[in-house]
């Protein structure tokens, strides 16, 4: 029941992301004389980010299995790897943003860039919140073991983490790949 409530929350979160996608779609051409996506995006970086996030989804799945068989060591290891991969993703994204800002292509340059930074940045904020949650779950299992309510929260965390990867699939396809191809 807890997981179902969280599932519905995730769907509401996806509706919120869809608004940012809609704004991005509408403002795509509004570069106000500034740079467009094709001129800015570094696809190699995006590919590495994608790899990090996808692998972290996999290791998160491993953590779920470890939790179900009550294996603390494998759980903590899998969660730690998931966290590290998530941090790598964030580091790469922060570096990309800083680079864009330094080139005068920050979010205040044009409506297109505002929409880009907001959509991708919102996802990045969710990943950051997810990492905070991940650390909290690692601490909880360390302190109290696999209690029933902690396992419920782990299920919710896994849902959250996988959903973030699903949203990233939409982002790299629509924003980066489509943006570079046109």
């Amino acid at each position, binding site marked *: 029941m807890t997981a179902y409530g969280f599932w519905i929350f995730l769907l*509401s979160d996806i509706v919120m992301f869809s*608004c940012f996608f*809609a*704004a991005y779609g*509408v403002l795509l051409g509004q570069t106000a004389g500034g740079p467009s996506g094709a001129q800015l995006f570094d696809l190699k970086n995006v590919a590495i980010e994608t790899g990090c996030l996808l692998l972290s989804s996999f290791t998160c799945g491993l953590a779920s299995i470890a939790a179900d068989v009550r294996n603390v060591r494998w759980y903590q290891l899998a969660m730690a790897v998931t966290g590290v991969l998530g941090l790598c993703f964030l580091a790469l994204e922060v570096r990309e943003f800083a680079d864009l800002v330094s080139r005068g292509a920050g979010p*205040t340059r044009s409506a297109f860039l*505002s929409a880009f930074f907001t959509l991708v940045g919102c996802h990045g904020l969710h990943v950051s919140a997810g990492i905070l949650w991940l650390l909290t779950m690692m601490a909880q299992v360390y302190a109290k073991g696999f209690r029933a309510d902690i396992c419920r929260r782990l299920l919710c965390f896994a849902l959250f983490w996988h959903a973030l990867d699903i949203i990233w699939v939409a982002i790299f396809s629509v924003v980066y790949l489509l943006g570079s191809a046109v």
Partner: protein
Amino acid sequence: MLGKLDWSAIPIHEPIPLIAAGAVLVIILAVLIWAGVKGYFPYIWHEWITSVDHKRIGVMYVLLAMVMLLRGGIDAIMMRTQLAVAYHSPGIFPPEHYDQIFSAHGTIMIFFVGMPFVIGLMNLVVPLQLGVRDVAFPTLNSVGFWLTATGALLVNISLVVGEFARTGWLAFPPLSELSYSPGVGVDYYAWSLEISGVGTLVAGINLVTTVLKLRTRGMTYLRMPMFCWTTLASNLLIIAAFPILTATLTMLLLDRYLGFHFFTNEGGGNSMMFMNLIWAWGHPEVYILALPAFGIFSEVVPTFSGKPLFGYRSMVLATMAICIISFMVWLHHFFTMGAGPDVNAVFGIASMIIAVPTGVKIYNWLFTMYGGRVRFTTPMMWAVGFMVTFIIGGLTGVLVAVPPADFLLHNSLFLVAHFHNVIIGAVLFGAFAGYTYWFPKAFGFRLHEGWGKASFWFTLTGFYVTFIPLYAAGMLGMTRRMQHYDVAEWRPWMIAAGVGTILMTIGVICQIVQLAVSIRQRDELRDVTGDPWDARSLEWATASPPPVFNFAVLPNVTGEDAYWMIKERARRDNLETREPDYRDIEMPRNSPTGFVCAFFASVMGFALIWHIWWMVALGLAGAFATFVAFAWRDHDEYVIPAQEVARMDRANIAERRAAMNMVETPA
């Protein structure tokens, strides 16, 4: 150190807000001192503020709504007075002030009266109707309420510290952008709604999960009371629509705080996009308010007609149809913005189609009354008043759904009259009906009938005297949000509307008197059995007020109108049943999480508005710490022993038996 905040934020040179703020502060202080002197604080903290009981939280929601109704109503009185006198005259309120009044009026009435009222009633009633002990997530319920209260608090603080938005209740850009609204008003508006929006979303998740996953044995979907179906539909809409509000306000705030260009005139921004998105939220929002009201009437009408609801399945279908179609009509709020005939036609047709399932509902209520033994109690009168009033409002709605007609009527007083017609007719009348109907369940005594009827007649008459003139003025070309006017034809209608406002105010005063009188006479008005209306659904199967665990033993349901079937069987068998098998009951512990979380949210909201960045960080850290503290607790439930459960239940059964014997005395 304190961002943009300094002493000039307090309106020392403006007498009206200063006096209003002063009066409110005096009242709040008086209440706090009275409660402190009487020693009520521990009781209020332990039994209400930290409560995770859906019944208590529901009552607090309704209380918030009724207090804010007074504030929003006073705004309305100010507006109507201004328009009655401001003919060839500057009136009482200068434009800078008047603009804040109508913006606050709309914001408060929708977000802090309508929403809390319906959410409160749903919270109070739905678990009882489903035959379960609480909602799916009790502590989260508390968090949701307190975050809503935070939003209301921030809006009210804007009266004393700073100013409110001057942009109307939906803050359209470019006016709401930083260059045209450099003050803190729009920030108060936006942050207040962002925070209370989280609270509303949480309530939505809670109620959907409760209806889908928590029903007593035997209660299949098609045996649920109609109010539970409308709760499901309305909360599905909350989950689907509120994220849109959050996203859109976030984009506006990013424009204002960080210089983004979503809706600005420069940099390629598109202000039309704001209207599009905000109404994609805004239209489902009115159905979020109206559907629970329809549900309330689906409970009141069968009870006071002595018949089951006519056409239950068609009602369910109509409700879910309204739920889905409400997401396909939003452009009718901006036909005139320039989408062109093709787009306008699609949305115009959809807007007319959505009137059909609503019509089905009206027919079903009428057929429920037909052939029944109708008792015209106060809730029933609100129901009949609703049917007449809402039909008129719905008809004018179908009229403005026709794009060519809307090109003439958009943003005129005709439109204002239309939406007040449907909102007051459905939501306000429904709220009052629900309040009167379920008050005895919540508190154990009925409300005084005479004052209730007086309130109804004053409010109903006052409504028509206020708003029918507005239809006329709109047809004569008067637009909304006017601070003064020079057209002679409009004047008599404005004066008539002013008179109507006096009548509606008397209606509200009658409500307050009714409450005071009822509390005074509560022993005569006592509900001893738990079923004062001879009603049909499960909330009436338990005591008034219900014990914290709702039902001693969760009921077993075998059909629609579950409680009616129980009563029929009891009358037949003359209550010759074995005593139920009482067990220990586990209930969730109270928790200060909701209140503390909202405290930090208030701090954060205020700090964000005034650009006090260190305070924002503090609030954020505090909120996170609250979550972790909540996650860390080891004891989240307490046990009520079986003997205690048995004792409370036996007392209620004894009362019911006595009442049945009094009724059943042979001639």
